[in-house]
């Protein structure tokens, strides 16, 4: 009996596998695509090599004055020399350890919250939220328990940016949740008050809010009561941001099926317990990515405090570029600022995407 032996399979055509295949599929699949690829490659060639040349190859890294920048590229000496000012503003240099310590405490204190297996996370988080602000205020501002006072007018740089962002979100979150609950309330008067509040703050730019808090707030307050500049900015930021948080939280509340409300009511829970034990835990979990996004927006918006004369990261850099000894360093300064802001915002947006995937328990289609 004749046996057939199959010939081995032919390999796929050499042009459709490996590097060549990938290139053909992704870059040169049609004449139009080829044209696009060539155009894009031209753009890259136009932008990337000069950028690397300027920022890395031709750049000056060491030195102390402007005269040390001779090679024609970026003068990172400027950033290096003013680094302290960019990070701490006018915070006295011998006391800067207090700022560092505050930051380390935040990192160490918050780290357990990011460990998934941590027991009693909510309790710990709550305790952290109560204890840490007091500790941070004591360390940064001082004035009691043996630490000398550093007034807020000396705060600045990245530290001030972080303080405004952190206090802003910590203040805006509870207020925003209350406003969202109010907006979804059955009571018309409460609803009208909350809607008006939210829509008002969402309709105006933050810059006018900051103007308002710096020129109108002193008029609103009774004689003798006054806030410093930072406090006024913070009040403006908190009120402004709470409206945005409220809308994010409302989205979460609306996503909870009606059955949850009815089941909670059928269990005999009152309004606050229904919200606190059943609705909010689910709704807030849904909107954590949204809250992180709001926080990113807030972080970027902190740069606006320059308008009312606070020395945040951006303003510190702007001031440094107007220094006669370092004229013409605007590009280096702003690129450095952009890099810092970018690292923070990009990191947070990645984290928010990660959370979105992790928390996705089937609410999506």
């Amino acid at each position, binding site marked *: 009996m004749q046996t057939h032996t199959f010939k081995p399979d032919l390999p796929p055509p050499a042009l459709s596998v490996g590097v060549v295949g990938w290139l053909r599929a992704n870059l040169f699949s049609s004449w139009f695509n080829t044209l*696009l690829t060539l155009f894009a490659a031209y*753009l890259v060639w136009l932008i990337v090599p000069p950028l690397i040349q300027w920022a890395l190859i031709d750049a000056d890294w060491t030195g102390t004055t402007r005269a040390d920048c001779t090679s024609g590229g970026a003068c990172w000496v400027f950033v290096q020399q003013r680094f302290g000012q960019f990070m701490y503003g006018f915070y006295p240099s011998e006391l800067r350890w207090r700022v560092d310590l505050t930051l380390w405490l935040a990192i160490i204190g918050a780290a357990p919250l990011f460990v998934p297996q941590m027991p009693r996370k909510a309790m710990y988080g709550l305790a952290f939220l109560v204890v840490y602000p007091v500790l941070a205020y004591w360390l940064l501002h001082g004035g009691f328990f043996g630490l000398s006072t550093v007034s807020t007018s000396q705060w600045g740089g990245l530290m001030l940016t972080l303080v405004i962002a952190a206090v802003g979100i910590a203040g805006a979150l509870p207020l925003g949740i209350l406003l969202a609950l109010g907006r979804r309330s059955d009571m018309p008067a409460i609803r009208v008050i909350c809607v008006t509040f939210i829509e008002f703050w969402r309709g105006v730019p933050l810059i006018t809010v900051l103007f308002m808090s710096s020129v109108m707030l002193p008029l609103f307050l009774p004689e003798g009561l006054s806030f410093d500049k930072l406090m006024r900015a913070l009040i403006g930021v908190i009120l402004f941001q709470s409206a945005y948080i409220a809308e994010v939280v409302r989205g979460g509340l609306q996503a909870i099926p009606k059955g949850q409300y009815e089941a909670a009511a059928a269990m005999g829970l009152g309004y606050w317990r229904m919200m606190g034990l059943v609705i909010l835990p689910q709704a807030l979990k849904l909107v954590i990515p949204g809250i992180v996004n709001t926080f990113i927006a807030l972080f970027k918006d902190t740069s606006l405090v320059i308008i009312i004369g606070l020395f945040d990261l951006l303003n510190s850099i702007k001031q440094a570029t107007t220094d006669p000894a370092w004229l013409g360093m605007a590009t280096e300064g702003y690129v450095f600022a952009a890099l810092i802001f970018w690292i923070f*915002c990009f990191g947070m947006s990645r984290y928010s995407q990660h959370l979105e995937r992790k928390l996705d328990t089937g609410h999506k289609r």
Partner: protein
Amino acid sequence: MQTTANVPRPGGSVWTDPKVRAWLFQILAVIAVVALGWFLFDNTQTNLEKRGITSGFSFLNNSAGFGIAQHLIDYNESNSYGRVFVVGLLNTLLVSVIGIVLATLLGFLLGVARLSPNWLVSKLATVYIETFRNIPPLLQIFFWYFAVMLSLPGPRQSMGMGETFFLNSRGLYMPAPSPTDSFGLFAGAVIVAIIGVVLLSRWSKARFEATGKYFPVSLGAVPLLLVLPGLAVLLGGNPLQWSVPELTGFNFRGGWVLIPELMALTLALTIYTAAFIAENVRSGIMAVSHGQTEAARSLGLPAGKTLRLVIIPQALRVIIPPLTSQYLNLAKNSSLAAGIGYPDMVSLFAGTVLNQTGQAIEVIAITMSVYLAISISISMLMNWYNKRIALIER
């Protein structure tokens, strides 16, 4: 079994009646809001009296006494604060409109590019989006203004494009058209041509629906649009006169100039907002399921019509609402002009005028209400549009 013990009597206490409680809460809330309002109002009154500031809007008629770098309507130093307000408002609207148009174009381009099957193009779009949306807009404005615009060469060494456009540290100079005597004839011809095209396309659509016969509108429209205005030019001569900027002494004369503040602001806002619009466009297109494309193709629609008649109308429904909020954001971000001294409403009115007059409450109230009005009108317009194109479900 005892079941009646814990059931409250139907009458119950008044305080446990949800309706009564709701009323009580609302009354308390209203009282609290009114009390807070009164507290603030009272304090303000006292403080204003103490500082000798008279409230009211009569200051709007006083002469301003300062010049403005860019005004779309006639303005000089002797004009009133009221006119300063209008100048600022128009400048704000100018930046917003230019920014919205450019950001929409760039954003749609980037959004489509990010979905492109071309690896390089989609990666480039991704890098652009991830870079620019994570840098604060104010920082971008500063960069374009302080690092780019102000370091351009002076007028005498300006970079020329042809002999008509000049870019230097004082701005972008370009030829300005001014109408001649025959402009009316030309404009009339253009309007008649446009009306003709509209009528033609209506007629062809009606015929198509009635008989199924297709008439290519562009076949009639292009000649109509070319011939009528062309005839007007032949009859009446050149409808526009171009005044070209010329270097006289240390500066340019004639033509239009885009001041560097305007350019920096527009550039930064466009680049920043386009990154967000691109993401909205991408998510909108991705929200249209692939089955729609397949269905359209199996009905025999070519790729272009699939896109135009099936994908885009459905994607737009998803894109429009977030697009609205991006437009609003751009309009609000235009107030960052105060950072570089572009004479928009905030820097002129809430900045200079407030400092000169000290009428903090009135000035801030006017500024805020303008933004509220812009916000509300844009969102109403978009809601109307959204409703019009919304899917009608049975």
